[in-house]
């Protein structure tokens, strides 16, 4: 059974269609990437999943059914627009938000103490939130997301504004939570971060799902159209099935026509007597795949 099932949801704000008939599933225990450029409809989709917004049409199932008040306590959410009560002492602020997640004040205090120590914030616990650095506040928000040991963790733009050290800390934390069997939905426009962490993903643009599936499968699907060739002698310019040839450092990038396989190119090169030092089928990045998709589908204005 899926942890999240999004079934043909749409949401409109005035004249703007924020989510357009989107469907995807998130399976238990995976790190799922919800990708898309800024303004694609990712956050609106998350808010529909979290029952903050109601969809105009379509259905969402979370943790085995419709969202209930009880289920909210089983979900940890780190929104993109992050905030804490600036005038409250850190421990007071964390305790209040943890009790809203169903923890008793005593349990919340115990767990917060452990997590403050883990995140090197324990000595700052009595300071007002506004006295903490931005990095410290982001760590505090991670504590709020995880303090109630949620089954499902949803994080929106988790690496936004983080320095490399804290970025690594968040990645480690996400991997650790995943290893503990938690389902993680990571929503970001930084696609390279998802490549590093996610098993499966959905890519949204202008509210529509434009790519959905297992990362390895997607890459396989979109690989093979570019080949890097490092010849030891001259490269013929009239090779069949080639759209264009671009020099790349001491090598050449050959763009293959649709339907032409890299092995066909390799045969042509060998038959034409080209001696090769290197022949590499290039695996495209998610950024490149995204640009390729939206360009071919005319989705970029």
């Amino acid at each position, binding site marked *: 059974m899926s942890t999240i099932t999004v079934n043909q949801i749409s949401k409109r704000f005035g004249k703007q269609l924020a989510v357009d008939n989107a469907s995807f599933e998130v399976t238990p225990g995976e790190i799922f990437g919800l990708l898309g450029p800024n303004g694609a409809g990712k956050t609106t989709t998350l808010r529909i999943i979290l029952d903050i*917004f109601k969809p105009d049409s379509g259905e969402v199932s979370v943790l085995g059914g419709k969202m209930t008040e009880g289920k909210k306590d089983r979900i940890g959410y780190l929104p993109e627009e992050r*905030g804490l009560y*600036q*005038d409250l002492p850190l421990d007071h602020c964390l305790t209040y938000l943890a009790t809203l997640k169903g923890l008793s004040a005593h349990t919340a205090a115990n767990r917060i103490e452990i997590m403050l120590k883990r995140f090197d914030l324990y000595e700052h616990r009595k300071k007002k939130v506004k006295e903490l650095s931005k990095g410290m506040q982001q760590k505090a928000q991670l504590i709020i997301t995880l303090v109630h040991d949620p089954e499902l963790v949803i994080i929106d733009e988790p690496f936004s504004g983080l320095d490399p050290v804290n970025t690594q800390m968040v990645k480690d934390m996400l991997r650790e939570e995943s290893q503990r069997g938690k389902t993680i939905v990571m929503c970001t426009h930084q696609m390279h971060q998802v490549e590093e962490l996610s098993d499966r993903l959905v890519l949204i643009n202008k509210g529509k799902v434009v790519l959905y599936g297992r990362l390895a499968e997607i890459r396989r699907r979109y690989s093979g159209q570019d080949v890097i060739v490092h010849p030891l002698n001259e490269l013929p310019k009239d090779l069949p099935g080639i759209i264009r040839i671009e020099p790349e450092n001491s090598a050449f990038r050959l763009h293959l026509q649709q339907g032409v396989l890299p092995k066909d190119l390799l045969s042509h090169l060998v038959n034409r007597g080209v001696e090769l030092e290197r022949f590499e089928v290039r695996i495209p990045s998610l950024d490149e795949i995204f640009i390729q998709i939206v360009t071919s589908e005319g989705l970029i204005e």
Partner: protein
Amino acid sequence: MKKFWLVCKHEYLRHVLRKRFIMALLSVPLTMAVIIGVGVLAAFVSMDFRPIGFVDQSGLFSNPQPLPRTSRGWFPIVAQSQFASEESARQALADKEIQGIFIIAPDYWETGKVTLVAETLLDSSIYRDFEEFLILNFLASKPETIRERLASGAEIVVRSTGTERQLDSSNFFTFLVPISSGLLFMLAINTSGGYLLQAVVEEKENRTMEIVLTSVSTNQLMIGKIIGNLSVGLSQLGIWLLATIVGVIFAIRAFPEFSNFRLDPTFLWVLLVTFLPAFVMVSALMAMVGATTTESREAQQISALFTIPIGVPFWFMGVIMTNPNGPLAIGFSLFPLTAPVTLPLRAILTNLPFWQIGLSVALLTLFAAGALWLASRAFQLGLLRYGKKLSLRELFQKA
């Protein structure tokens, strides 16, 4: 349900534990204490407690008895000291042993003439006490109850027609209480409404709202916030009213002139039935404004649309007091934003028809329910709108 209480408790404690709230809370009792203290102190400092002399040239008071009491409130009364001759009395006055001399004329029985010789004007209580002293000694042979009754005079109570309500028009507190309770209501509603507004806008501005909304429903959040902040205002109002009551009790004890003060029970229950729905109504309106606007300055400007009308009856206080059953007074009593100040005041001034009280409270309750509905809509639609305010059309359009 538990989460609603958590929100409520959080909202209540975050304000009542703030220094500026505690300062505001203490300001009224402290001001009251200072006013009474300064009043009592000024009275003590300015009063002359030396005896007043009198010379009886009429021979009517051969063996005068002193007044039965020795103090008035917290102040000792000035004793009457008899002198055999005007010369000896004038000598005592020159020696500063007494503060003045009442000379009872030989033809007092026919003319009632008494001459006061003093260096300055004396406190008015000295005249009253001397008159009482004369009456009591004139009636020395009469039973004590008759003497006291005649000496005290009549206590005139003004009673409005067709009702048991009574009003002492000469009493300062009779008008002070409804006016000050209206002012305190305004202060309290502005405080709690302001806190509520601030709480909603702050959570939007500092982006805490989205985290909170993934833990509680919008209705739980709204009700928790309204009740929490409403309780702040009610606590404040309660403590201020308590301080006022204590202040009035002290003032009555210090200055017995105020002892004929009566608080009409109609006023009290009208106060209760108007203040409670009015509190809910204004709080809900504040919550709605907080949820629909994008920043605190804008929210405060819009909220003035609700808070200013509450004080409008004070601008027309003269008209309401001179014509408490006039169209303006009745109109203000029925309009929900002006009713909380006008209705209790009119309850002191006139015999309020029951239909007016009922209609006013019904309208207030209806408006409070409507304001709660609007606040709920605004919370559902506007809480996560950053940088874009909710339009009235969106607020009223079908969900």
